[in-house]
């Protein structure tokens, strides 16, 4: 029987953890708000964006959501502010701002 990892929390005794802390679930990174680590923040300038989507595949944190073929605003819960999107944007539509706030 697989351990139900949703029932494990910071009060679980050592005997109740999974072996090697194996995680029996997919996509759990979304529960970890790594955006808190950000010291620089990308800001989308809507007027300049041509929806070429070049920024999407280069994001190491999958923090540029796409819906119906168009990119949406950044997922700031997970964006670490690396700035790769800003440097690949051919239209200067992504500006890097100092600090954690967009």
């Amino acid at each position, binding site marked *: 029987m697989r351990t139900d990892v949703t029932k494990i929390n910071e009060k679980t005794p050592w005997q109740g*953890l999974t*072996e090697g*802390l194996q995680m029996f679930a997919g996509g759990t990174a979304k529960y970890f708000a790594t955006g808190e680590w950000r010291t620089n923040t990308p800001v989308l300038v809507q007027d300049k964006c041509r929806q070429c989507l070049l920024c999407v595949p280069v994001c190491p944190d999958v923090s540029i959501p796409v819906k119906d073929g168009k990119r949406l605003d950044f997922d700031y819960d997970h964006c670490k502010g690396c700035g790769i999107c800003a440097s690949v944007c051919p239209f200067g539509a992504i500006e890097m701002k100092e600090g954690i706030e967009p």
Partner: protein
Amino acid sequence: MKSIRERMSGNEAVAYAIRQVNPDVMPAFPITPSTEIPQMVSTYIANGEIDTEFIPVESEHSAMSAAIGSEAAGARTMTATSSAGLALMWEELLLAASNRLPLVLTLVNRTLSGPININCDHSDGMGTRDTGWIQIYAENNQEAYDNYIQAFPIAEDPRVHLPVMVCQDGFITSHAVENIELLEDDPVREFVGTYQPEEFLLNPGKPVAVGPYSVSNYAMEAKKAQEDAMEQAGEVILEVAERFEKMSGRRYGFFEEYRTEDADYIMLIMGSAAGTAKAAVDELREEGWKVGVLKLRVFRPFPAKQLTEALRGCRALAIMDRCESYNGCCGPLGMEVPAALYRNKVMLESVNYIYGLAGRDFTVDHVKDIFAELREVADGRMQAPQHKYINLRSE
């Protein structure tokens, strides 16, 4: 049970066992004196005798990394190395254990640099004693073969799920050809069984993350669970040994007690030099000395309680280390054995000796000299000369 009488080196014996087990994957990088093992396995593969996937990697760091990935993916995986190769695997050894992967590594013991030297001592294996691997040491080619076959059922037992290091002495065991009794292929395959991990990466519909980052609120509990598995391993090692005895007729435990029953003086030793010590004991017994050898087979988990019981009652003990700890007081066994005795309240005279570093000869006469010294110490005629080097040139 039918056995096959052969003559083989330790490396050949382990390669033969690998052929019989037919593991799924072997990533390996050559290093003296273990090079022959991947070389011979490659030949078995090239001849179509086994279907193991051999991955020629660019270093031992990569060998252990590939082994971890492969084992986590769900494949029965093993590798071989020696000395600096094991040192280069260091970081990954800890990951293999903490990710609870039942890998098997055959270690052909060779000294660590420097000075650079290719001959036997236990500094490589001892250096990794706190990496969380089970460690089993062999006296000769027969034990290297037998231990190897037992390694998989130990590692893969759900109570354990820890990697196993199967050790034999470089050149002395790995390259010397001795008589051996091999088992037939089918019983070995049946003994080892098919590897069926419960959780593995290449398992569609059952996602699992292996080795995720752990915050402080969980990491200490994970380490305790890993330590508990090492404790459980003791029981499993004995169960597997019992099953192995039924198949082969050869008996194994945490250690071998050779003529220790009524012994006043015991030498505790690991690896090939145990054979030398036994030969000396036989000669001394002829002269009426009550002497014996305790050959440690399982170094991790460390059988502290069982050792204590086996040593209780002897007058003096020689603790033999084929490794220097550079701690200013003793070798690794010289530290752990007295700790076990003290913890279990068995107080006996013990002397820690360092021998055989980087292939230095260790002979029957050296063993006899040590027993003579033990008697002097036990009789109170001399102070225990702790941390003493055997067969060393000195002013």
